[in-house]
């Protein structure tokens, strides 16, 4: 991994954020709502509206508005929420922290389940366990989060009363209760990814088990366990890193739904609220922060891959 490669990746993150900011700005600018009307209400006097438009720079040409917004962004200023009157930056980042807790737990749970599942399915290819895993993963990728979430809620919280239905408790205030509240949302978002990633691990593992070097390792007389874990699993998991990173995009989408269902004040819920309220700065900040999270996750995955697989030549 050369400095040049690193510089390229950083440049790419910058480019990604630039494109995302342009896109988000373009989409939100096309919003039919007049920000001034949203702020002051339908009954505001034309004079007051005009004054506010001037103050917000709404009369400037679009590119100038973009430039003002972007340069403020670069200074870390995401704008003021039209809904709460508070700066959106801190609001969105603290929401992001809550979302990342859900996402992190979901990723961990997913890996803990998907990797062994895919491994066993590959080793017992065509066996009953493989078929069962296959069926489950079909179901997993075919159920949208709002269905699984609601059904889980119905079953585990409403029917069996094992878990609290909705709500969020900060981790530091009461760790146990906090985690109890997180079980359902985490379970919901990880299900789709378990289905996807376990299939991926399975097919990669099957490929690797058929590779020449695994055969060579076997025929060198190495113990089966060494062949499996040192030679096969490691190489089968490498491409999975990339897939998991790409799945982060899916995860972030899933989190929007899950936060809505389970009433978690994360970034997804903030976004939905902002969209409903047409709170422009909040929408822009939320979308940008989500995309940034995704880009950073992929950047980290690239670094992990590079460290684990020296074959990649970074030029």
């Amino acid at each position, binding site marked *: 991994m050369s400095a040049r490669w690193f510089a390229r990746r950083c440049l*790419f993150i910058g480019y990604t954020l630039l494109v995302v900011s342009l896109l988000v700005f373009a989409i939100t600018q096309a919003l039919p709502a007049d920000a001034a009307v949203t702020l002051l209400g339908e009954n505001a006097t034309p004079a007051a509206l005009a004054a506010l438009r001037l103050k917000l720079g709404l009369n400037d040409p679009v590119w100038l508005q973009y430039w003002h917004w972007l340069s403020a962004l670069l200074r870390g200023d995401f704008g003021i929420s039209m809904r709460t009157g508070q700066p959106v930056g801190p609001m969105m980042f603290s929401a992001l922290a809550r979302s990342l807790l859900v996402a992190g737990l979901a990723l961990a749970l997913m890996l803990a389940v998907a990797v062994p599942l895919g491994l066993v399915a590959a080793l017992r290819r065509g066996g009953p366990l493989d078929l069962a895993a296959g069926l489950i993963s079909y179901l997993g990728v075919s159920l949208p989060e709002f269905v699984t979430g609601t059904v889980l809620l119905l079953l585990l919280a409403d029917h069996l009363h094992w878990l609290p239905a909705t709500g969020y408790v900060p981790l530091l205030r009461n760790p146990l209760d906090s985690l109890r509240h997180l079980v359902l949302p985490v379970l919901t978002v990880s299900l789709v990814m378990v289905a996807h990633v376990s299939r991926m691990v399975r097919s990669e593992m099957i490929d690797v088990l058929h590779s020449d070097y695994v055969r060579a390792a076997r025929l060198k007389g190495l113990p089966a366990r060494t062949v499996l874990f040192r030679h096969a699993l490691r190489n089968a998991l490498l491409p999975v890193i990339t897939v998991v990173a790409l799945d982060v995009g899916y995860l972030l989408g899933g989190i929007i739904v899950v936060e809505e269902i389970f009433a978690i004040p994360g970034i997804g819920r903030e976004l939905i609220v902002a*969209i409903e309220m047409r709170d422009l700065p909040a929408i822009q900040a939320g979308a940008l922060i989500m*995309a940034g999270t995704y880009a950073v996750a992929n950047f980290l995955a690239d670094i992990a891959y590079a460290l684990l697989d020296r074959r990649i030549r970074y030029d």
Partner: protein
Amino acid sequence: MIELLRQLARTPQGAAGLLILLLLAAACAFGPAIAPYGPEHIDFLGRFHPPGARHWFGADQLGRDVLSRLLTGARSTVPTALAATLAGTLLGAVIGTASAYLGGRWDEIIMRTIDAVMAIPGLLLALLVVNTLGKGEMNAAIAIAAAFAPGMARITRSVALVARRQDYVGAAIARGERGTWIVFREMLPNVVAPIVVETTIRVAFAVMLFATLSFLGLGAQPPASDWGLMVADARPFLHQAPWMIVAPGAAIALTAIGFNLLGDGLRDVLNPRDER
């Protein structure tokens, strides 16, 4: 085409997928005709009627028959998802092919931009688009198409680049074929198969995404009986009438499973040499 269907019916996934999709097609075509009740037929005395002989899948908070609403809703859910996927595929295919064809610096710029756009989660992009265009079925479809286009562009490009490298394309260039012949006669037939497979599987995603948008209140609007909307409507009554959620949820899952199975079946049939 007939031959393809016959081969498809021979693979287990293909046969199961075809069966499910035939049922769905029947629901879309004849749904309102075979539904036992009108979808908006309100019966206050039969509110929250549990599943049984009178209402196979139960009745909702207004006493409307869930099965009838499902059958009617198929018409709004499935074709919309299908159309959105096709539009997204087409847009993506054009961008991907152009990028592969232009090559060099343009290819890199287009692909980097596509990567950047893909940093916005699909659902979020769809939310933003739908919010701008306004709520509604049509706009949700446009949003889904927009969310799918970048991914399809990536796939089309990589498939096209593989086709471009084949020696038979080299042979065509060496005998002086025109660009259009090479693209349409030599490359395209070999590019279509993997894209068809990918598109089929994406319809499953589109069904789910469309339902999700409706669920979040941004897709189809009440009193439509779109499946996602039915789930959203049912949430306050989770406790009293779980069937109101289970039935549309199962319908969505079944549709998605059907398209996923069909996609896997197509993959097997279209690549006969891949033994795995």
